[in-house]
């Protein structure tokens, strides 16, 4: 460990620990949370490690408070994060909306478990994917990432912080119990090798500063409390001064920009992994732990001579509609295994728009798919 508390090298870490280390490497210096399986180890690790890097850990009274404290800390000038699982994610929804409205950079990690309700607290699930997209009220766009290994939890947590600063919004890391509790080798690069997006500071003197005048990419620079900008921000619909304006016109202008700053930058945001798509008859589209399980089925199918491609969502929101539509033109079907009763499959179906079939392989949670069920679906698809 360096004198600044930064670590680098090769480690044997759980996904939860890798996530916490990713956050620290990204410059996260504030964590507020409430214990919940399977995300508790992130909080535990942060409570150990944040003091070593000069940061602050606080255990709040619930997830409503955790999310609110994270937003407050971000406006106080720190990179801030919370981590939770389904029940806590539900409680965070209102303040995730506040984060979107105030345009507050921060990261929310959801280590998904099987729901609804308390469900299977210690067992895996992917049932919150649509909640990630639509769980808070009102029209909005959001960014959510889905890692498929502890290493990716490290890498994508850094990426989540960078995106949150670049586009000024809460970015979601949608992982699962399986990855959070999985131990694997994780490489932590030295500090110089880690790309960090700094906060976009105002480029005008305080007297001229208006909190919501966007740059060309539709994202406004952000002042923080205590620097003399004397700004006001509100969860009410507001104008460029940050003042509440109760009209449909102000709502249109603001909400359109909040959505457009994500949607018009989709190509820069979206990351996917593809393999063997060219010439494929069927493509398995998946994410997170399910994508890992699917690779076994894909290998077996290929051994049988089936031309099957792999399409893995790394960015789940915004969804890569254009790419899926393009792929759909040349294949018979998408096979979509996910640990829920069909969520991202709906997006695949929508994007494919009838050009290719979408075959959902649902799993209600508590375990991962048996690769054979995915293989069977692949065989069916090419028949």
């Amino acid at each position, binding site marked *: 460990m360096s004198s600044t508390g930064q670590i680098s090298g090769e480690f044997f870490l759980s996904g939860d620990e890798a996530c916490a280390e990713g956050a620290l490497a990204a410059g996260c*210096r*504030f964590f*507020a949370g409430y214990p919940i399986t399977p995300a508790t180890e992130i909080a535990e690790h942060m409570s150990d490690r944040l*003091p070593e890097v*000069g940061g*602050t850990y*606080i255990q*709040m*009274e*619930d997830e*409503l*408070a*955790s999310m*609110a*404290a*994270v*937003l*407050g*800390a*971000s*406006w*106080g*000038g*720190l990179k*801030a994060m919370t981590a939770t699982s389904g029940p806590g994610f539900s409680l965070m929804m*209102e*303040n995730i909306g*506040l984060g979107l409205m*105030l345009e507050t950079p921060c990261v929310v990690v959801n280590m998904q478990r099987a729901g609804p309700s308390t469900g299977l607290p210690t067992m895996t699930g992917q049932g919150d994917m649509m909640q990630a997209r639509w769980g808070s009220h009102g029209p909005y766009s959001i960014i959510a990432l889905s890692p498929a290994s502890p290493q990716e939890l490290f890498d994508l947590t850094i990426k989540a912080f960078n995106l949150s600063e670049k586009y000024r919004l809460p970015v979601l890391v949608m992982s699962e119990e399986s990855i959070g509790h999985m131990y694997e080798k994780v490489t932590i690069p030295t500090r110089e090798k880690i790309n960090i997006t700094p906060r976009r500071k105002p480029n005008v003197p305080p007297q001229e500063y208006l909190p919501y005048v966007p740059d060309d990419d539709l994202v406004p620079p952000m*002042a*923080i*409390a*205590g*620097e*003399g*900008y*004397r*700004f*006001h*921000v*509100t*969860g*009410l619909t507001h104008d460029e001064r940050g*003042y*509440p304006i109760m009209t449909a016109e102000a709502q249109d202008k603001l909400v359109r920009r909040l959505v457009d700053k994500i949607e018009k930058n989709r190509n820069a945001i979206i990351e996917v992994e593809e393999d063997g798509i060219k010439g494929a008859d069927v493509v398995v589209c998946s994410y997170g732990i399910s994508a890992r399980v699917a690779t076994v089925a894909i290998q077996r199918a290929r051994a049988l001579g089936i031309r099957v491609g792999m399409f893995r969502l790394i960015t789940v929101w915004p969804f890569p509609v254009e790419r899926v539509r393009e792929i759909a033109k040349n294949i018979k079907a998408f096979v979509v295994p996910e640990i829920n009763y069909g969520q991202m499959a709906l997006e695949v179906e929508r994007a494919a728009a009838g050009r290719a079939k979408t075959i959902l392989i649902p799993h209600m949670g508590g375990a991962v798919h048996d690769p054979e069920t995915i293989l069977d679906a692949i065989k069916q698809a090419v028949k």
Partner: protein
Amino acid sequence: MKTTAIARIGAHPLDEYLRTDRLPHIWCPGCGLGMILGTVLRAIDKSRLDIDRTTIVSGIGCTGRAAGYVKLDSFHVTHGRALPFATGLKLANPNLKVVVFSGDGDLAAIGGNHLIHAARRNIDMTVICVNNFIYGMTGGQLGPTTPEMGRTTTSRKGNTEKPFNIPYLVGAAGATYVARWTTAHVRQMERTFIEALQKKGFSLVEVISPCPTYYGRMNEQATGLDQMRYYRYNSVVKHFANLADVDISLDGQIIVGKFIDIDRPYLPAPKGENGK
């Protein structure tokens, strides 16, 4: 040395602290909120706080609109969550002076859990809790402080629940400074705000305030003036009163004064403590 705004000539003495381009405010004639906000701003001015580092956080409600009128770094957040938001803000930058200005419903009903925990942790901030005995913003419904038999739009025959005694609650939870005044005690209120702003740890001042539009009209105090008159003739100053005895009833005394002023470790810990 910094001159106070009040010493300056020309504009209204508090203009430096107000977003004058947002006035007039939305509050009803006879409402106590303007008076309380004015008093807070005078207290901030007289305390010679570094104004660039003074922030106001409000939740949702008529009271919550205060954040939008002050020319400070100010945050108008979600209903009930002013305290945890302010907790994050203060912990992220201990150099900030954090003031939470919100209603009794916001702080003691939907935000009640945060209230006791912020007091327990003794987060270094000043909370101004405006208690008008009702939910003003949503049109006069029952609140956590509505006195027994108090009439509201959701308790037309009179409230049958026991209300919170806010000083008793936050005192038991661990606040280091607790006081109560009414809008008929502007000078005392100002002195108390100045003290609360200097205090290290969790300070809370409850201000009993007229809502003529809903509470007054439904409880035989039809105007703001009637309510002020009531406060004037029924308030009893009892510093360091036994907090179990400061309950408020529909037509009884209102015990006011400074109730708690103690010192104990607070968060964020001053530099050099707790390993920081």
